[in-house]
């Protein structure tokens, strides 16, 4: 997984055997002024960071245990290096699930997913890491391991410090242990795929608006551009992926509604049972060959603006020699684009896309790009107006800035 061009590398590598050893490693690094890059499964090596090489790569590979699984409480406590797949497998025997569907579940660790705040299409109904993490143990740069939250599903004792670490890109501490809320596995599921040949995609928005005005409870409303539709479904045009998870009668009823409301010109395909899992597994493993510049962009907007974001990607691709695979969730506001092509073209594409997003009050950040590319156009876009607060938090928690220097917003 370790790639020369992606940066975020270090001279030395350690893989502590215990949380205490992680803390001790940080304490020593802090004393000697060594910089540290925490790493889980290594799937986010190209995410964030415009600086040079660090002193130490600190892996959580040896911290992969399930500490405590309490099916009756629907909670699980695991070490940060456990992969998402490990957790999925651990809770399946009690018909439960961890309601997170990030990319590369077999490699991505729970610590990394939380630090990078990765999420997938199902966040529409189930939420993202900030909705599922109820407790953390974090090793701080001064060598202390501090707990936040707890093991209960409702907790307002003190500040909700869990939130600070979710999406902090490992700049405030190294997560060593995580407690998550689980859900029961749905009893049944299906996925309605509507494909809209190019020219018919204007029917998507009225369809979604109508669907959202019913009592239907879709788990995903993911919209894909033609390239991604072709790559994943081998079909032409835009597509809308509508997943239902519920008891069987409720799934069938919702599926029937979609069947009765297929927009003119659109085509419906229905996936059932394991086909649905298989599709989402393929979706979570989507990637493009890396012989040219490959860049992943994450965009945040209001829910329905996602449709514009996906269409923006197609429009901005038109006069450039690029491959752009794009999707976004009309019920959760996150869109993503995977872009491949000659560096200059990718660069101007991302800059134009970022401009559109920011003008709409949203953002476009790079979640994967070569180091040189990140240095040229920046990972995080325009600094927020409240940047001094972010800087203040960093100074309090990691005063010597040994953790992931320059990995985060505004060079934090």
């Amino acid at each position, binding site marked *: 997984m370790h790639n020369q061009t992606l940066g975020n590398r270090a001279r030395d590598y350690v893989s502590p055997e215990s949380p205490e050893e992680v803390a001790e490693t940080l304490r020593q690094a802090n004393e000697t002024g060594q910089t540290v890059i925490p790493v889980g499964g290594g799937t986010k090596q190209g995410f964030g960071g415009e600086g040079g090489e660090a002193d130490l790569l600190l892996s959580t590979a040896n911290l992969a245990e399930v500490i405590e699984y309490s099916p*009756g*409480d*629907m909670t699980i406590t695991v070490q940060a290096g456990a992969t998402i797949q490990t957790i999925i497998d651990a809770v399946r025997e009690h*018909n439960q699930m961890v309601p997170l569907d990030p990319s590369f579940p077999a490699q991505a660790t729970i610590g990394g997913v939380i630090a990078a705040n990765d999420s997938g299409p199902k966040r529409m109904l189930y*939420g*993202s890491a900030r909705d599922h993490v109820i407790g953390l143990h974090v090793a701080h740069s001064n060598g*202390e391991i*501090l*707990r*936040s939250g*707890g*093991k*209960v*599903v*409702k*907790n*307002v*004792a*003190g*500040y*909700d*410090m*869990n*939130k*600070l670490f979710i999406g902090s890109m490992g700049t*405030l501490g190294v997560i060593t242990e995580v407690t998550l809320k689980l859900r*029961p*596995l749905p*009893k049944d599921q299906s996925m309605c795929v509507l494909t809209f040949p190019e020219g018919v995609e204007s029917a998507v928005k009225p369809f979604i608006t109508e669907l*959202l*005005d*019913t*009592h*239907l409870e879709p788990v995903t409303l993911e919209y894909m551009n033609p390239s991604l539709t072709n790559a994943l479904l081998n079909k032409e045009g835009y597509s809308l992926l509508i997943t239902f998870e*519920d*008891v*069987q*009668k*409720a799934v069938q*009823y*919702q599926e029937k509604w979609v069947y009765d409301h297929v927009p003119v010109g659109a085509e419906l395909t229905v996936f059932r049972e394991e086909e649905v899992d298989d599709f989402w597994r393929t979706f979570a493993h989507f990637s493009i060959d890396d012989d040219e510049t490959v860049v992943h962009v*994450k965009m*945040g907007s*209001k829910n*329905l603006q996602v449709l514009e974001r996906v269409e923006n990607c197609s429009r901005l691709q038109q006069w450039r020699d690029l491959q752009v695979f794009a999707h976004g969730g009309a019920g959760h*506001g996150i869109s993503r684009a995977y872009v491949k092509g000659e560096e200059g073209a990718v660069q101007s594409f991302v800059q134009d896309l970022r401009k559109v997003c920011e003008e709409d009050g*949203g953002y476009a950040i790079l979640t994967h790009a070569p180091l040189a590319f990140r240095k040229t156009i920046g990972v*995080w*876009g325009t600094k*927020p*107006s*409240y*940047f001094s*607060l*972010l800087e*203040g*938090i960093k100074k*309090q*928690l990691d005063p010597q800035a040994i953790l992931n220097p320059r990995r985060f*917003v505004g060079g934090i």
Partner: protein
Amino acid sequence: MTEKAEMVEEMIRQLGDDAVLHRKEDLLTYECDGLTVYRGMPLAVVFPSSTEEVSGVVKWLHEHEIPFIPRGAGTGLSGGATPFGGEVIISLVRMKRLLDVDYDNREAVVQPGYINLTLTNSITHKGFYYAPDPSSQACCTIGGNVAENAGGAHCLKYGVTTNHVLGLEVVLHNGEIVEIGGVPDAPGYDLMGLVTGSEGTLGIVTSITVRILKNPEAEETAMAYFDSVEDASYAVSGIIAAGIVPAAIEMMDEIAIQGVERATNPVGHPEGSKAVLIMEVDGIATGIEEQIEEMVSVCERHNVVDIKVAKNDRERGRWWANRKTAFGAMGAISPAYLVQDGVIPRSRLSEVLAHIADISAESGLRIANVFHAGDGNLHPLILFDARNEGETDLALDVGSRTLEACTAVGGSITGEHGVGIEKKEDMRLVFSDEEIERQITVRSVFNPHNLLNLDKQFPKPARCGEVKQAVGSGEAHQVAEQR
């Protein structure tokens, strides 16, 4: 001119004569919030009508180093809006407008003084509602809900306030106005998540964007009576283990049942019932029946005495009114009560309830239990009579002991009411000094001079700066706060 007179004059200059209270008789109402055992006299109460007015007031108070407390409806149950004495209360009740509703994107924007239930009432004609539903929802404000990260009966399925806040406008300690969130995963640390539940110590929220949800197509409510709290507890675990995600599971024990039956919303709970469960399932209509049937059969396996399903919305409404007014109903069987808010892993319910029964027996104070059984959030109601000497202190002590019973099984001291003044020292039951200190260092980024809701939410850590000096001079124990 005295400092107070100067402050009052300035507040009147900024806000107008009708927006400032400063005479002692006008301030009495503001001596406490919903937790009445602690009281303190504010210096003044001011009523800004806009973000700019809040900003102007805060800027001036900051410059003059006068501590201040944001306050909503004052329904908080932990003393979060109660002054220690000498603070200016910034009441947000005049900022009570619904600024925008965007049904397509499922968002609403409200001012902080907007009432929780009014939001649902305002969007119900379109089939939408706002999910967090604390029992005080008919009068509590959404700004206050954000400060406390309020929960409610339905957060088992739908989450608490923090899961529904999408954006905030915040006036910082120096009067600066910032907007955070607005779109999901906004780059930077999650300040929105940090501010939610910070009990007014990190800033004053002046506008809130919340998620609104489509009403479920159908909902069914069942009520089940048991001969023992254990049976009811096992039934709750059984329902969860069956893979049902109920919208709510609430429990009341025998004393609580006696209270609600003698108060204003009786529903005819059978005499002598040891426990009642109120269970609700919602979602797609065709899927509801089998879930209710499954819940009924789980209850039957756990010796349910009687179980009934609400016939219509009216009956459902009456059941919920009975449950949601349970705290106040204790007035029918006791001159005073103190409500606690511990949380436990739900699998430890019967064990902890037995422990609480022991505490009740030892102390001689009756304890009624009303709680969100599905998520393990207990509300022991400690019944006492403040006219009996020492009984208020005893009740407070019993309250703390119930929290110890919760933390002993890995639980928390508060699930939705907040720490405020009441549970500051109890924070030590869940966090080490270092962990408390770290939270205070985060506070210092937003609230460097501790003017924003001065000294709330955290005990003084044994290791913080001033105290370290005190340790050197042999005065380490001055940090023990009065409760």
